């Protein structure tokens, strides 16, 4: 399939807000409606005065809503050339170049059962899916299981209440959590795996391998598992 060429466009930062101590969400206004699907990403390109550029891909956290605004959540990597700039320099009113939306595989269109399994910052594209289901009246069609080390590492915490979300803490659970801190297990996934659901797994490579093995243990066919692994995106 040959799509329309993806062009670079100027995006304006309209809001920056922290998600955790090391993650921020950047709300960008594009030149026109984004037209993105839940799960897609954009490339951000920074250009220095001498023409040097650095680009990285970031998943969209906001659901498709017909608007010209998107939200990218970016984890600050200490050695990351792009993520440190975005975190330390970028402010509302700034412009930067973006290109997208990209990717037509790791996407959920909002009409079929989905199991979303994210590790750490891997929650970002899944959040677009969860939000899409909720805003189109299909809450519960997409069910999220997110794994984080401790409560302070959880992105979007205020939105992760509710029967369609399970948070798995691997190192330190909050007081009163019924589950002792431990790595994600088949017993965390089995209750949310619906018959015929497509699973979307996003996280580090190790997390993705562990989660796909567990999903297959609970009876999800390999053909129904889509994986997005986070490489370094400094």
């Amino acid at each position, binding site marked *: *399939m*040959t*799509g*329309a*060429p*993806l062009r*670079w466009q*100027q995006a304006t930062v309209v809001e920056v807000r922290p998600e955790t101590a090391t993650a921020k969400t950047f709300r960008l206004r594009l030149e026109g409606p984004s037209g993105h699907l839940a799960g897609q990403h954009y490339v951000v*390109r*920074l*250009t*220095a*005065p001498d*023409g*040097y*550029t*650095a*680009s*990285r*891909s970031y998943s969209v956290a906001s659901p498709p809503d017909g608007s010209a605004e998107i939200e990218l959540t970016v984890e600050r990597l200490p050695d990351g*050339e792009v993520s440190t*700039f975005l975190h330390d*320099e*970028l402010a509302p009113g*700034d*412009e*930067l*170049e973006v290109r997208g939306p*990209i*990717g*037509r*595989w*790791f996407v959920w269109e909002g009409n079929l059962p989905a199991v979303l399994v994210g590790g750490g910052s891997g929650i970002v594209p899944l959040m677009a899916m969860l939000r899409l289901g909720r805003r189109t009246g299909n809450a519960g069609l997409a069910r999220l299981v997110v794994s984080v080390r401790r409560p302070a590492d959880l992105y979007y915490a205020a939105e992760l209440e509710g029967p369609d979300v399970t948070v798995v803490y691997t190192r330190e659970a909050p007081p009163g959590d019924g589950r002792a801190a431990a790595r994600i297990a088949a017993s965390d996934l089995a209750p949310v795996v619906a018959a015929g659901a497509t699973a979307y797994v996003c996280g580090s*490579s190790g997390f993705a*391998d562990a989660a*796909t*093995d567990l999903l*297959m243990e609970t009876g999800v066919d*390999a*053909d129904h*598992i*889509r*994986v*997005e*692994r986070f*490489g*370094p*995106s*400094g």
Partner: protein
Amino acid sequence: MARFTRGFAGRRTERDPRLPPGQYDVGTGWPVLTAEPTPKLDPATWSFRMEGQVAAPTTWTWDEAHALPPSTYSGDIHCVTTWSKLGISFTGVSVDTLLAAARPLPAATHVMAFCHTGYTTNLPLADVSDGKAWVVWEVDGKPLPREHGGPARLLVPHLYFWKSAKWVAGLRLMDHDEPGFWERNGYHDRGDPWLEQRYQGDE
């Protein structure tokens, strides 16, 4: 024309001439990027097949493939997600050796690499001929790890690395081009990193 980003200077000191535009040196790491679960493939039942527009469709077992003359690539690899890995070495068999056995028909212009997972990627025949492509089972002298495509993957290092299909099962020679998995999903049909052919519609 790119516009400057306020406050951005970049961190580069001197840029390694081995890095194509828009790429950065990932150093000693080697990211794993795949779209499907990592399969567990047993070399005992592994096979590689040349089929389609060839005079002699041929299948090699693991042992048969290893009995072919070995060939090593030493150089760099470039992922479309902007990392490059410099100075890496792979050993396996040259695709030229496999093509010589299967004998492409004159009509053959493109290949579809297909994998044990169902993944596919399309390439011009010229991009897998004349010393440009390998089927490899060793990296830096060690067996290719499963997450990097082991027991064997295609290696086409002059193109973005999604063309170097992991868990490769064979090449189907075609008399036309058609998009493979990522190519149907927005990525470029050829993927030359030096031309930054990342997405469909790029030059």
